[in-house]
């Protein structure tokens, strides 16, 4: 296996992102006990983060237990899981927060008890934690917008409907905001509507079908991975091969669709890498070693031209891998 590091990232510890390379410690000094909290494990994105976490925990020989809250509607459950983690006496906690703001009290409590907490993948309020690694969702939305514009011939009109994801989730709103910001740079691009909705394929399919009717002029669909997945079929059925589909994040389906040419592009933030970095950050915090306090993986738009160069093992877990919820140190 080729190692995932050194990984190209931005070091945003000081506030302004600076390009850097991330290299983990070879081993933990002791088999520490780490607690990992995820919003859910219901798509290949979070499975990819989990893969990074599990592999790195095994590599560094630490104990790891992963809890998933079952979805973004379960903030109270994540709060309870945080408490349960604290009660089990961990050396550090890694959190993929359902709501960074919503967990801020927990972070304070952990700090007061001296348990280091690392944020992974989902954005947090500035300086909420001693260490974190995530892409700013607004920035990631911007990247996808920029990617779309880059593939557009000058003078082409873009009539876009966005399908950011569930209203009230926070991340959907942020992605959307970033995307709109980027697209606003092109006077020929117009946002016709924003259609929030649960990020399941069935719900998104219905939204897209309706949007195809409500906005006959629509020629770009931008949205979540399930949106893109649903859109492929709906667009084919409606005979609108001129429609461009862009996904705001990655999963296995997006990769396949891109390879088939069904979608124009998707964005990635290298979730496997994020998981691995989080473990290393946690160990560094425990061992009081120097740590990059805010790591930002370099979000990228993947399209037909860039896909061959993509470092796949940082984007998705191997298809054969089934998630493990705990790792025991040897």
């Amino acid at each position, binding site marked *: 296996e080729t190692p995932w590091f050194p990984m190209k990232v931005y070091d945003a510890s000081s506030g302004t992102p600076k390009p850097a390379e991330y290299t983990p410690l070879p081993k933990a000094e002791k088999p520490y006990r780490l607690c990992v909290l995820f919003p*859910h*494990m*219901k*798509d*290949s994105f*979070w*499975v990819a983060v989990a893969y990074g976490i599990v592999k790195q925990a095994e590599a560094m020989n630490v104990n790891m237990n992963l809890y998933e809250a079952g979805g973004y509607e379960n903030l109270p459950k994540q709060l309870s899981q945080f408490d349960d983690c604290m009660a089990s006496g961990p050396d550090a906690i890694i959190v993929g927060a359902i709501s960074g703001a919503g967990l801020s009290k927990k972070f304070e409590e952990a700090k007061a008890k001296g348990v280091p907490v690392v944020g992974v993948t989902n954005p947090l309020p500035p300086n909420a934690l001693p260490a974190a690694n995530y892409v700013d969702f607004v920035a990631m939305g911007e990247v996808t917008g920029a990617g779309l514009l880059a593939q557009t011939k000058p003078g082409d009109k873009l009539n876009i409907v966005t399908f950011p994801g569930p*209203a009230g989730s926070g991340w959907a709103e942020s992605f959307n905001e970033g995307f709109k910001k980027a697209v606003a740079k092109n006077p020929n691009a117009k946002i016709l*509507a*924003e*259609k*929030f*909705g*649960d*990020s*399941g*394929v*069935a*719900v998104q*399919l*219905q*939204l897209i*079908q*309706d*949007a*195809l*009717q*409500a906005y*006959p002029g629509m020629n770009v669909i931008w949205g979540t991975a*399930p949106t893109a*997945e*649903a859109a492929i*079929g709906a667009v084919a*059925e*409606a005979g609108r091969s001129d429609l461009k589909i862009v996904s705001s994040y990655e*999963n*296995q*389906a997006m990769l*396949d669709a891109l390879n088939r040419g069904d979608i124009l592009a998707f964005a990635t933030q290298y979730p496997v890498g994020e998981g691995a970095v989080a473990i290393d950050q946690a160990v560094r915090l425990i061992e009081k070693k120097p740590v990059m306090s805010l790591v930002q993986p370099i979000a990228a738009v993947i399209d037909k031209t860039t896909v061959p160069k993509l470092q796949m093992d940082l984007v998705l877990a191997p298809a054969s891998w*089934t*998630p493990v919820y705990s790792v025991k140190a040897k």
Partner: protein
Amino acid sequence: MNTALVTANPQGAIGLRSIAGRVGFLPALLVLLVAGMSAVDPQFYGIINILNILRNASLLAIVACGQALVIIAGGFDLSVGAVVALASVVTAKTMAAAATAFPGNNALIIASGMAAGLGSGAVVGLVNGFCVAKLKVSGFVVTLGTMSATAGVGLMITNGIPVYGMPDIFVKGFGRAQALGLPTAVHVALVIIIVMVFAQRRTLFGRYVYAIGGNVDAAIVSGVSIQRHVVGTYVVSSMLAALTGILLTAQVGSGQASFGGDRMMLQSIAAAVIGGVSLRGGVGRIEIVAISALFLTILGNALNLLHVDSRLQPVFLGVIMVAAVALDELSRRSKARV
């Protein structure tokens, strides 16, 4: 000579009340909605939009029919959403496995996948039925439990990752196919509605479902075997949910544990209740439930076509839903007193 004794009771009142009580004014409301939308937005009656509406309404109607049956028998099925998801992933997984085992043998692959999907639904239905009929736990609680458990199993199978590898023909020739100008799901739904209406009106099963929901004690002393029929309603409901899961899978082209969910469950109950099914049991007709499913689907479609802000859509949906049922209730009350 008997008729001379018929009382002062105005038969007309009963006639009107029955009509109001049995048909409701939902069909009228539906016509109004369709007419209004057609006037406002020509996109609405575009053929593609109509097909979309019909397909989505069909999927909802299939689940709602099963749900209605359970509610008429005095139960409640919260697990339908989870079953939709489970059936989807089980079908997809089985087909993928069969496709590697017997490559090219599409008939076998599809048959085994659908059998597995429907089978998984039947299992959940049997568990629900068993707990309700034999262990005498309330349907609400049992299906609340199996909802959680079923969703858990669906996720365990897939880890939430979509399942691919179904034969193309299943997707193109079934899921996205059209016959006589209508999508497969519509045909399936029509067949199911007709069969269910027939079952409700003309078979022992339908009759006993009404009897059990209307008054269990009376049904028992009349010699109706309760357990068998209660189990039957839950199995039918779960299998119809599974069928919806399969149709969705075929349409989307992948097995997804995100199908169905709480949303489908709430919608199916809403469709049944708005369609005049009494939560107290014993009352309700499948054809009105189907109309109600169509009504709810068109409502959602209309809000999208009218470009209503998607964050505000739930507010409109909620208000209209409550208003429709409240008006129905009020009209029934005033008619009862003619």
